[in-house]
């Protein structure tokens, strides 16, 4: 209680700032002084660095998808997955443009609509309409494609929570914290029922990040964290989870003694990464990758293909590109014209950081194995489009930071 009061003196305005105070070189170049009558066209404010870094990751991702799905025939590569991923990326880019074009402030008023739709979809996917794969009821089969509503839900929920928490002035009262948690918690519960632990954990990360920056009292954050830890321990020790799910989550804690499929996955994953060494075995030269030793390599374990074929250099480059993306998103959050814009960026940032750490960390054996994709790299339509949509949100906030 007392500790929170300390904060009052430190509350400082970081929200809207004058464009003349703006930071980066790009902005300064576009700047023509406070007396400018007509602002430059919006597209001049697109964060090019952010876009280029994302495209670079997507290209590397596409190469790795090809490498891990081309089959074992050296003379006839199977291009099916590459073609489909190209289509997804094209759709993702279109989504980005669409999301970035509409002023994000308008989204604020309509945020509840996609939220309700997503809740309905998450409910519907649990019924006979949805399809099940490897024990998880998470997909709608639409012709040749599959829609995973949980992926879409991440972005939609970020918008809804940002819209909600943009209202109150900090510090947030218990009522707002509760409302925020409810908004996040409803879809998260539905996703847990599927069950998809990985995506549910992404919601936890989003919640913590957004509540922290939105101005929740530390007291509340501590309580939420405590409840969360107790909840996880409770779930692990109850029979809510199937044994194999529990194994997936705990294998990484005890990598030498476990046997079975999970340890096999992790071992093969580490062998692929480790055998790549400093500069890798060369593009399309990875034996673990070509011979299919790493399960789910083109989706959840795409990072291992990169590690085997392009080595430490390749992995460090991709992590570096992700770091650039995170920096630009964080910077956009700082520069955002309003609280809603800032919270949108914080939500996206929390999502990206957690997914990258969770996904890459799992391939290296420092995080539990949960099936979540590496943004922009993993094969998959829903994930690719949702990631690009999230990028669109950030670009949107960035472009409109002056008006």
């Amino acid at each position, binding site marked *: 209680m007392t500790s929170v009061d300390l*904060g009052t003196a*430190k*509350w*400082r*305005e*970081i*929200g*809207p700032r004058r464009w003349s105070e703006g930071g980066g070189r790009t902005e300064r170049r576009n700047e023509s002084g406070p007396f400018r009558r007509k602002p430059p066209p919006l597209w001049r404010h697109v964060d090019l660095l952010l876009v280029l870094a994302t495209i670079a990751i997507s290209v590397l991702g596409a190469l790795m998808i090809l490498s891990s799905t081309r089959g*074992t025939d050296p003379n006839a590569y199977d291009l099916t997955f590459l073609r489909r991923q190209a289509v997804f990326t094209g759709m993702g880019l279109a989504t980005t443009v669409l999301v970035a074009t509409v002023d994000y402030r308008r989204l604020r008023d309509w945020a509840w609509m996609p939220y309700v739709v997503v809740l309905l979809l998450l409910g519907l996917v649990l019924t006979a309409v949805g399809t099940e794969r490897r024990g998880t009821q998470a997909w709608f089969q639409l012709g040749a494609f599959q829609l995973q509503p949980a992926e879409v839900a991440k972005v939609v929920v970020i918008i809804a929570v940002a819209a909600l928490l*943009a209202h109150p*002035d*900090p510090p947030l009262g218990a009522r707002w914290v509760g409302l925020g948690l409810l908004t996040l918690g409803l879809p998260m519960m539905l996703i847990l029922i599927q069950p998809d632990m990985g995506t549910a954990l992404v919601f936890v990360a989003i919640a913590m990040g957004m509540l*922290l*920056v939105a*101005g929740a009292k530390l007291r509340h954050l501590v309580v939420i964290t405590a409840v969360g830890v107790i909840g996880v321990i409770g779930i692990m020790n109850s029979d809510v989870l199937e044994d194999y799910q529990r194994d997936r989550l705990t294998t990484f804690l005890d990598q030498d003694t476990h046997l079975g499929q999970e340890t096999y996955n992790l071992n*093969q994953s*580490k*062998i*692929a*990464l*480790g*055998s*790549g*060494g*400093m500069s890798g075995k060369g593009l399309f030269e990875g*034996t*673990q990758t070509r*011979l*299919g*030793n790493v*399960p789910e390599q083109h989706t959840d374990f795409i990072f291992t293909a990169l*590690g*085997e074929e392009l*080595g*430490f250099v390749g*992995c*460090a480059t991709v*992590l570096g590109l*992700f*770091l650039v993306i*995170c920096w630009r998103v*964080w910077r956009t*959050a*700082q520069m955002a*014209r*309003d*609280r*809603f814009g*800032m919270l949108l960026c*914080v939500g996206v*940032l*929390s999502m990206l*950081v957690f997914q*990258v*750490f969770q996904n*890459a*960390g799992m391939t*290296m*054996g*420092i995080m539990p194995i949960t099936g979540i994709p590496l943004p922009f790299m993993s094969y998959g339509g829903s994930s690719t489009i949702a990631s690009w949509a999230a990028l669109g949100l950030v670009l949107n906030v960035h472009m409109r930071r002056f008006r």
Partner: protein
Amino acid sequence: MSASLSGSSSVPRWRLSVLGVVAVALFVAMFARLYDLQIVGASEFKVQAEANRVRLVQVPAPRGRILDRYGRVLVDNRIAVVVAVERNSFDNLPAAKRDEVLMRLAGELNNIGEPVTIDSLRARVYDQRFSRYAPVPVAQDVPEAFKIYLEEHADLFPSVSVQRTTLRSYPYGPLAANVVGYTGKINEAELTAFKAETAKPYALNDDIGKSGIEKSYEAHLRGTPGQRELEVDAEGDPVRVIRETPPVPGSDIVLSLDIDVQALAQQRLEQGLEAARQRAPRGDNSPNNATTGAVVVEDPNNGQLLALASYPTYDPVPLADGIDNEEWAYLNDPANHYPLNNWAIQGQWSPGSTMKLFTAYAALKSGLRAADTVFYDRGGYSIPGCSGDPHCFRSNAGGAAYGRITLPEALTVSSDAYFYEVGAQFWLQRERFGGEDAMQQYMGEWGLGADTGVPLTEERPGRLPTPQWYRNYREQQGKHEDWTAGHSVNLAIGQGDMVLTPLQLANGYATFANGGTRYQPQVVLRIEPPGRDAAPIPVDPVVVQQIDLPAEIRDPMLEGFVGVTQRGTAARAFSGFDHENWPVAGKTGTAQVDGKADTAVFAAFGPATAPQYAISVFMEESGFGGTNAAPVARALFDSLSGAAPLPEAPLGGLPTEPESGLTDGGSTYD
């Protein structure tokens, strides 16, 4: 405080910074772990990745052949058809389909007489020790028609394939089977024993030498398996061949055997045994069962063996092709006298009077007797200091008394009394001659009681009994009993506990023939590695011992031995022989065996003037040596001396009904 344009309010800046710091920390953690895996751990993971990827498959190599001294092939390879199951594709069939295929295959194999069941097939196909990447053989040497049937009905037999393999073939049939030995599938014990073999690693279902030359020269005969390095995917399915080293056949082994001499020796031995069976037993002796026998022909000039005949013998073909239980039981039934044994090196029989060569040498060399010392043979001998026991008086065989004789005559007529006295005196004057086993020391120089070292399997050492041995032997039976003069007397005429192998006897006579050089009997002349450019590896004669045989010792003994075939105990057997130009020196032996007919023995060499062949003949339960064994040797000498043609060995082995062409050995005690 607020300059908000949209109603938002201020937020503490540090909270956003916390988020940034957390993000950076997580990235640092990832970089650190990446460094750990990809830089520090790289070499170890590279090894693991390689192990994931590569599977090694062995390609069996043909064994080397076995030839006789003139290059005639005794053991060859022939191509045979093998039915095999491709494990890798078989495993990918649905379970019901797998059973269906096995059931159909078992049925078809039964139709062509292969003794398989669906269970035996299943056990074999699922035996995890077979490589997944090489076909698992389930039936070998099936008819060509069956191969065509399988190929025409390939749709009914998915993942069943027909392969070619090499099997042993024996152009001369069972001839020399006991020398060359046989091969068979490697068993558990052998697999374990050869685990460390890396140059020519063994795999399940590989052939391995089980006996004879096949076993003792396994390291040379075995080919170097080829190796196929397969790249496999995560399911273990082969993707491509990375590297392939072709198999290299094993080395050919050239034996010292002359297959013509071998065939003749085998034939004469079998004829001799048959003749013995026809003879009525002597007095109240047991019938002449003539169960086993052996003939050795050795070149005394270098120890090379020209023939090693053994009876009974066996057909190696079924053993090489996979023998059934019934045949195997027959071969191992004591009632059949162990056809698999090579009796020339495994038979241990008392030499009887053929021992007298060694006794005579001991007597002359030690100075106990001089060759011209006159001994009065009264038809028997009373052991000095022995009384109250019927065994204290030993009579000559048949009770004949030869009167005043010297050493040559004692050998020619085979006077036992002469040698009884030698044995007794060696014991009685043991202080003078250098100890209680003085006689055995002299005899031991000839290689008695020890392996000759011939490179064949299961050679037995025989026994040259000494007082110490006897005490230990009786001790084991719980009795305290010492050696007596009677034992020495027995040993002097090759009876009692004294036993040796036909090879030891032939080698002893060969040593005498060449003037005292004892060779290690040699059965392999050279090893011929595969490839045109490879130089043969010769096997040189090995001298084991040089015995000093001065003329004053050798000449009288030789005189005695030559007399044996001309007017002595083997004169009947050698009647009509060209003694003038090709004299044969020999000695008959008749060893008594409790409850059985005597063992007929004959040892000889010729021509006595410049010896080229030394021969020993053993025939168990056959009666007199001069009657039964000497004619066998005589028949061989006929051909070896050129008096009779040496017939070419018949391909496919000897005719089953041997026609007898042996001389009548008469009935002479020795």
